[in-house]
Structures are given as C-alpha cells and as structure tokens.
C-alpha cells in the first residue's frame, strides 16, 4: 500500500517511528531527492539501532540495545499528522555486554519475556514540531500494560528508497511494573534509537 506521492511545495514530511518535516523550496536542489519521495510506506530495517540507558546513582548506568525488532511506518505526504507507525521489539534480544544483566532484564523482575514476548508501540498522533522534527504519541504496551507515551523524532537522511530518523523518548518503568532496582537505578529509561526505513 504505497501511498501516492504528494506534490511538494513548501512541504514535506517525514516521520518515522514517525515524523515530519517541512522544507522550503530552497532546501531542495535539483540533485537532492524530492521531498515527495519520502511519502510512502516503509518497513523498519535491521540496520536500525534501538539503544537504551538507565542511569544509576553515583554516575554511569546500564546501557544496551535490543537486537530484534520489527515495524512499519507510513508517511503521509499530504498531511503529516496522518502519518503512523507501529513498532515491535523483542525483549529477549536485549544486549548489555553482561549476560547476568541481560538475564535479569529478561526475567520476571523486568520484561518477563517468557510471558510477554513483545513490547509494542502504536502511534495515535503525529505532530510536526520543526522543519525536520516531530512528536509522536502512541500506545506503548509492555508486560501487559498499555500507556500513552511520546517520542521525539528527528529526520536525519532520506532518499527515494530509504529514510533514517533519530528517535528519543524517556519512559518511566514503574507504570509497567518494572520498577525493580529503584532508586539505585533510575525509574526512567532513555531510548535513543536510529530507525531506518526501507520503502515497501
């Protein structure tokens, strides 16, 4: 379901796990990809990076990545606000460089990945916040609990086939029943993701 390309005037779009962008006509040179090219449906590729960190008292903290995830997003060239994203990650793929930390994160203390195999995000609204930034709100579901969360999205790069975003979000873990280790470890998980999409 590739979206029809939109006519770009001062336009544009974008978004990734969502986003949107507005560029003036001056931003597009002849050789640059047409902004309208960004409209469309994308699959999130394995080249993406889902990085997170949890601060700890006294400095430092737990940093890691989720190696397995999947998702799709659609950029509406006519109306960025109608763009959408759905994303799934598999907590059992968590990597921190310390197997005991990984086992702990997968255990019943945190993700309980044996019972809840996925963490999902489905957007409910997309708002453009700058020429190449957007705020995406949606429902994050983890450990059987669903909550509204917000991520900020920044467009990094795109061409006619692919697009790349930096997506950040600060998520409180206690509402999901994952507050183990507080206050030694922060209640807030900082997500810092580089999401790459390939056009369907």
């Amino acid at each position, binding site marked *: 379901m590739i979206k029809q390309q939109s006519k770009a005037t001062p336009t544009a779009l974008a978004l990734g796990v969502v986003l949107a962008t507005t560029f003036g006509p001056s931003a597009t040179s002849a050789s640059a990809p047409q902004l309208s090219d960004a409209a469309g449906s994308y699959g999130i590729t394995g080249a993406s990076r889902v990085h997170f960190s949890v601060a700890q008292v006294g400095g430092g903290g737990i940093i890691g990545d989720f190696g397995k995830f999947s998702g799709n997003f659609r950029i509406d060239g006519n109306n960025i606000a109608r763009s959408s994203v759905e994303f799934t990650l598999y907590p059992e793929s968590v990597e921190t460089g310390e197997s005991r930390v990984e086992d702990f994160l997968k255990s019943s203390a945190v993700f309980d990945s044996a019972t809840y195999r996925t963490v999902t995000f489905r957007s409910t609204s997309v708002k453009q916040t700058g020429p190449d930034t957007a705020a995406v709100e949606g429902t994050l579901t983890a450990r059987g609990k669903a909550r509204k969360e917000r991520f900020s999205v920044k467009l990094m790069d795109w061409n006619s086939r692919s697009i790349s975003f930096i997506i950040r979000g600060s998520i409180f873990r206690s509402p999901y029943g994952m507050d183990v280790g507080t206050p*030694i470890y922060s209640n807030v998980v900082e997500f810092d993701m580089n999401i790459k999409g390939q056009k369907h």
Partner: protein
Amino acid sequence: MLQNSKSTFGWVTIILHWLIAMSILGLLALGFVMRRLSLDPALQFSLYQWHKSFGFTVLALAALRAVWHVLDRQPQAPSGLSVLERRAARTTHAILIGLTIAVPLAGWAVASTSTLNIPSFYFDWFVISHLPMAKSEAAESFWTSTHAILAYATLALVALHAMAALYHHMVRRDEVLVRMLPTRLLRRGEVEKTKGSQVIAKRK
C-alpha cells in the same frame, strides 16, 4: 561503666559485642538465602542490597570494636585458667575481631570488582564508593570465594566461641559468659545507685 573494669566488661564492649554478633548471624543467614538460584530475581536483587547495607554497618561497628579492644583494658581471665587456655582465648578473640572486619571488606571487594557494577547505596541513603579495584569476572569470583570462606570461618569460630562461653558458664561455673551479658551491669548499676543514695542519706 562505659569502659571495661578489672573484673567485667563495660557498656561499650557489651553493646558492640551483641550488635555485631546479631548482625553477623543475620548476614550469614541472609547471605546463604540470597545465593539460592531459585529465588525470585527481584527479591534476590533486594536481598543483595540489604546484605550490603547491613554488611557496611558491621564493618563500621567492627572497626570501632577493634579500636576499643586495643585501647580499653581487658578484664582479667577467671582464675584457674592455664596459660594455654588464656592464650587460646586471646587469640580467638583477636581473630574474631579481625574476621568481623575482613569479611565485610572482602564483601566490599566483591561489589567493587563485580562486572555488574551495582552501586552500594547504603540503605538508599548515600552511595559508598567502590574500592579502587579493577573489575573482572576473575577478580569478582576470587573475592566472592574469599568472602564466603572467611564468612564460614567466622561462623565456625563463633560456634567455638559460644561453646567456650557455655562451657565456662555451665561446667566451670565462672563469670566469663555472665560478664558479657547486660543484665549484670544493669543490676550492678542499681546496686551502685542504691549505695550512692545511702551515702547521700548518711551525709544528710
């Protein structure tokens, strides 16, 4: 009263002795339980943090106890003890005091060398820095073993120490156990108070 006398222990020694005794028995039990792999991981994490906070408490108390042991006089051994027995008692007490410091230090080394790098957040109150030691699996496993071996050695010595005290109390029927109990000091305090008021009454 605070200090030891020629014949008995003072309050400082008695309070430190029993506080440390109760704490290390609790820590030994906690340390044993928290190592069970079948534990709920969240509970296990909490138990480890409690163990660390109480362990640091014992380290501070034991350091105080050691200083007090060196500075304060020791009550005389009951009469009728052989030189060997006196020496054995003195040595056991010195080793016990040394172990009450060495065990928590080794535990601190475990937290410091662990690749888990979990901060020691004393009763969720303030952070106690790790010792300046390199983190590695080898170092962590070495200090974990050392901590456990020293802890079990302490338990063995505590058992010996307690049996010796009971032997003195029940077989030799001397004051060795009783003078470490707070009850007699309390009673003596009352007697002295009574004596004192009698003196005052006489002066009047």
